């Protein structure tokens, strides 16, 4: 068992590393852009400050594509070569966490190096980690649904997510704003959510991604390799 998990880690990791390389190139390209457009006397400073933002942005841009691709394209390939679904899934979760964690660690490190809002250091990194994880999880599930049920299923899924967010946000907003009473439940919840430390929100995001991962597994455990 261990051998096969290590083997999966090697192969899936290899693909992830290529993606990480892609992220790096994007970051460097953005830095170059920033350097070229920065005031001549403050190139290093500008780049340094923007760098912090470029990392999560690049990660997010790439992770959408990578995560969508995984269950739609890569996983069926590994399955056709004789891997178990459990082995693929477990290793991919690990890689996902490492990938997001690495991105945020780099962000964290560069914040320290190039300066930035120090007090939000830990919080920002955690927030970025949580949201990346959530985004990845959503993408993975979308990719799997597209593979199993076709593109329309994936679009439907995206629509559902969009509607949920709209709805949740809208409901809260309406309740909070329209109520005569200053002190209603929705407003309290909103205040609580706004006042949460970044870690709290990150925690929610991580929890959300865990739920998405669980749902992904429910669909993946009996996925067939299509001809």
């Amino acid at each position, binding site marked *: 068992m261990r051998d096969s998990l290590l083997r999966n880690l090697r192969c899936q990791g290899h693909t992830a590393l290529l993606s990480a390389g892609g992220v790096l190139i994007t970051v460097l390209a953005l830095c170059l852009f920033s350097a070229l457009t920065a005031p001549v006397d403050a190139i290093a400073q500008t780049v340094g400050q923007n760098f912090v933002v470029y990392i999560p942005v690049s990660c997010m841009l790439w992770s959408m594509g990578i995560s969508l691709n995984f269950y739609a394209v890569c996983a069926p390939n590994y399955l056709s*070569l*004789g*891997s178990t679904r459990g082995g693929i899934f477990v290793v991919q979760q690990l890689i996902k966490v490492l990938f997001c964690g690495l991105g945020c660690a780099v962000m964290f490190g560069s914040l320290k190096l190039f300066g930035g809002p120090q007090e939000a250091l830990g919080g920002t990194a955690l927030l970025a980690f949580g949201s990346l994880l959530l985004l990845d999880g959503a993408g993975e599930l979308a990719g799997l649904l597209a593979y199993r049920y076709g593109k329309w299923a994936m679009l439907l899924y995206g629509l559902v997510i969009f509607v949920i967010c709209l709805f949740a946000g809208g409901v809260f907003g309406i309740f909070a704003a329209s109520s005569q009473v200053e002190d209603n439940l929705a407003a309290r919840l909103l205040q609580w959510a706004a006042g949460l430390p970044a870690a709290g929100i990150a925690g929610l995001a991580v929890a959300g991604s865990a739920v998405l991962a669980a749902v992904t597994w429910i669909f993946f455990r009996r996925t*067939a390799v299509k*001809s």
Partner: protein
Amino acid sequence: MEARNDMTLRCEHVSKEYGGKRVLDDVTLEIEPGRIYGLIGRNGAGKTTLLSILTAQNPASSGTVTLGGQQVWENQKMLDHLCFSRELNPQNAFGNASYKVKEYLRMAAAYYPNWDKAYAERLIGLFGLDVKKRIAKLSKGMLSMVTIIVALASRADITILDEPVAGLDIVSRERFYQLLIEDYTETGRTFIVSTHIIEEAANVFEKVIILHEGRLKLVEDTVGLVARFWAVSGREDEVDAACAGLDVHHVDRMGRGKTAYVSTEPGGDIRRCTDGHAVDIAPLSLQKLFVALCGDETAEGETK
């Protein structure tokens, strides 16, 4: 030949449904180790579905698949003994379309524990395959070659090939049968080959599995199977008299003449039925008997 473990691949009462349609119906099959099996059946008979269920690439709707008594589903240890090499569709190729052949082979090497690199390289040379080409750009014939190379070089205990010769010209097909026999005489591993080109491959199969409309029609020794099928021809009444008591699978008529495609019981003697009647008998090839068995949608069968 190397010693073989008792690695019998068994499926018991396997059925598969897709949206209400039964693609496989109560299939129970035992693949004895160390034999070359041929799997034949019409398009849509369920061959690929059965093979992918046997290798846990597709979950059965019901029934079990075991190898040496252990479940195959989600069991990496058992899956390591299997290789299912199927037709690559250049459009998606399980997500391999953008890979180069050599990258795909490198991946295969990682996933098949018994991968034989030297053998793979020899086969690449033999087929004259350009490993730098992308899979999406390969011709049908070259795709078949990749399928064959993966299957053979995997050195898996039970190797399954789904339509390996589709797209190959006759010379390459003959080369494949040769390679298969060479490998088999050297390793004694188990092969299951599904094919539409029956007659060529018949000599290579020790046993034949016939799948028809999702059901297992028969599993039998090729030689024994062919020995009990006959074409009985002559005048219609003579033929009918001669074939009384035999399984008639198909009938051709022309004017007053009739040819009946019949089978005896294993070990039966056709002459006991036809002697004394003015009929001609001729043996049937595997291909012809398959068409007689599975050719008619509404079989004109007259059974005992």
